[in-house]
């Protein structure tokens, strides 16, 4: 598994090596339990080589907040993977008519919601976070990495998970 980190004040627990492990554990759990898919850690070179060939991405973002601590988890995945996850989640036959964009976005949003919630439960189980309704946007390429970026493959297709932390107001 690969990650990049940048210095952040007041939130050491969320960008620690343990938090990175917890993020991968959350993704693997969501992939296996709800999407019957296999998640594997990726090294940067093989990830970006595969990612460079992806024509269209979907970026699902869930913001979280607990008192002074605010941030967001973004899942960037190829549209092709989104459709595969949709089929696995719903039991849809690939020969059936394609699902609507709204439904695929809803599903990708729920995927990111589950990853974010499962990760927060692992790293801060004594705290209750408020999560926003997921937002899902199409993208032509991967965006900039957050404070932490985790590189994973789900069923051999790349997915990047970015943790964005907002500076703590009055706590710097």
């Amino acid at each position, binding site marked *: 598994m690969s990650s990049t980190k940048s210095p952040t004040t007041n939130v050491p627990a969320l960008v620690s090596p343990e938090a990175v492990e917890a993020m991968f554990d959350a993704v693997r*759990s969501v992939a*296996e339990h709800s999407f019957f898919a296999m998640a594997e850690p990726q090294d940067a070179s093989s990830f970006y080589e595969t990612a460079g060939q992806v024509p269209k991405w979907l970026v699902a973002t869930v913001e979280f907040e607990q008192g002074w601590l605010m941030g967001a988890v973004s899942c960037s995945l190829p549209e092709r993977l989104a459709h595969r996850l949709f089929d696995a989640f719903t039991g849809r036959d690939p020969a059936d008519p394609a699902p609507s964009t709204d439904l695929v976005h809803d*599903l990708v949003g729920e995927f990111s919601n589950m990853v974010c*919630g*499962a990760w927060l439960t692992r790293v801060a189980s*004594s*705290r*209750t976070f408020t*999560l926003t309704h997921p937002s899902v946007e199409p993208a032509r390429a991967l965006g900039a990495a957050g404070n932490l970026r985790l590189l994973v493959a789900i069923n051999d297709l790349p997915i990047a998970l970015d943790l964005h932390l907002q500076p703590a107001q009055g706590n710097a």
Partner: protein
Amino acid sequence: MQILIVDDSAMMRAMIKRVIKLADVPVDAILEASNGAEGLAVLRQHDIQLLLTDINMPVMNGAQMLREIAMNERWRGLSRVIISTDGSTVRREEAAELDVRCYLEKPFSPEVLRDVLNEIADNECAGTGQP
């Protein structure tokens, strides 16, 4: 039995609905709502026996809805199940105080939800799913 599913994800509601149909529970109707406020409106209009609700939702979250339900005698016999990504100890303690019978953490396999539904139909709840 009339069942209400409250979740802001249409896909998650569809998945839960599919599992309910596969479970061995007597179902007269399955109703849906996308947030706590809509859920309360459905509860007022229908005789619901089982509520399956998410926590984090826009407009009114699941915890706020459950607090409203706990204050109303009319819904005393309503079986309440939380299905949420929020597995915090604080939320589980709060759920226990709000008469929630089972607490299912997302992600979950369809089999786990099916077992919870079957046990609720038998007036029991899986030990691992208790808040």
